[in-house]
């Protein structure tokens, strides 16, 4: 057994205890790759070191190309998903904005004093006779057949509108306890 072999085998305890300097570790490993006798001696004392001989798998250029292609596809999918999520979130924001606007409009109409009020017309002035009022509520603009609840308050949105211009009317039935 040559001197280097002796020296290398003596490094084994330090190697297993992780107490060797980097240079000794390199020497130990390097020697084992080229000396079958030392490798067998070391493996007989620490069998798990058998696996230090396991070399890296040969990864073919085709395998690398497959991985690269998979990564490209993955990135493209992620990008598409990101754009889709962004578009959805924009759509939600737009719908939410429209919803808020609608809610504000309704609240404006329902809550007195929160916004400029449309001209209020006395119910009696517009409402037809009580007998025509069913418990229900008939939409406006039905000509002569239209009916209103007895206790209705009618808000005329544009009271000055002429025949050509459409009239917007909001009717609140005060008799309904809701």
């Amino acid at each position, binding site marked *: 057994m040559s001197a280097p072999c002796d020296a290398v085998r003596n490094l084994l305890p330090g190697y297993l205890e992780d107490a060797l300097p980097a240079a000794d570790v390199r020497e130990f490993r390097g020697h084992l790759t080229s000396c079958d006798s030392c490798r*067998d001696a070391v493996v007989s004392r620490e069998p798990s070191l058998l696996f230090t001989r396991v070399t*890296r798998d040969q*990864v073919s250029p085709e395998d690398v190309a497959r*991985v*690269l292609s998979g990564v490209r596809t993955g990135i493209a999918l992620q990008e598409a998903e990101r754009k889709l999520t962004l578009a959805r979130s924009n759509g939600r924001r737009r719908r939410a904005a429209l919803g808020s606007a609608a809610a504000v409009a309704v609240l404006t109409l329902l809550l007195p004093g929160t916004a400029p009020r449309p001209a209020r017309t006395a119910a009696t002035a517009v409402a037809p006779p009580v007998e025509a009022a069913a418990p229900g509520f008939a939409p406006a603009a039905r000509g002569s057949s239209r009916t209103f609840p007895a206790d209705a308050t009618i808000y005329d949105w544009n009271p000055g509108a002429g025949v050509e211009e459409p009239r917007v009317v909001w009717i609140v039935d005060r008799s309904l306890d809701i």
Partner: protein
Amino acid sequence: MELVYSESRDRQEAAELSDRELALRARRGDSVAFEALVTRKTPAVVSVARRIVGDGEDARDVAQLVFLRVWEQLARYDEKFSFNTWLYRITTNLSIDFLRSSRSRERAHGATLHLVRLREEMTGAQTTHALESGELARLFEMVSSRLTGKQKAVFVLKEMEDCDTKEIAQILACGESTVRNHLFNARRILRRELARICPGLLEGRRT
């Protein structure tokens, strides 16, 4: 034509850059630099993943996930550290996750059959000399199935990838003493499994 020439020149230029420089370029959205990085690092990533997950096909799947994760998280790469350390951290984490997945548990049933065949082959006259690297890799796949993901990762990085303890601690985001503990336990379990699965293998080597 000019575009093709330009791309080819970019690839050639990218091939000459260090890992860190490629990573920094990729972070700025340079896809040529990123692809150069993938091409360069795939063998190392597949190799580490292969030793941990125990199957070549699965290792390639893990490698794809690793590079996707790298692409997503490039902004978080700290250039003060080695790119390899960061890459190995992602690789070992995803490989360990993969090991825990139901898919790898299903494969474990199949591995039992291999184990029986391997045991038949290994008993008797075969010695460590006769074991080629491919067979050793198969043997490692069998005996290391008893290791936890962390133990396996530490053993692979230490004994097969030649990483030192400090680097492994950085890769696994743990202390150096934890790395030593994992390594100690991994060696103990591997010794026991080797003695159980192929007792004849080591007897001939006693000196």
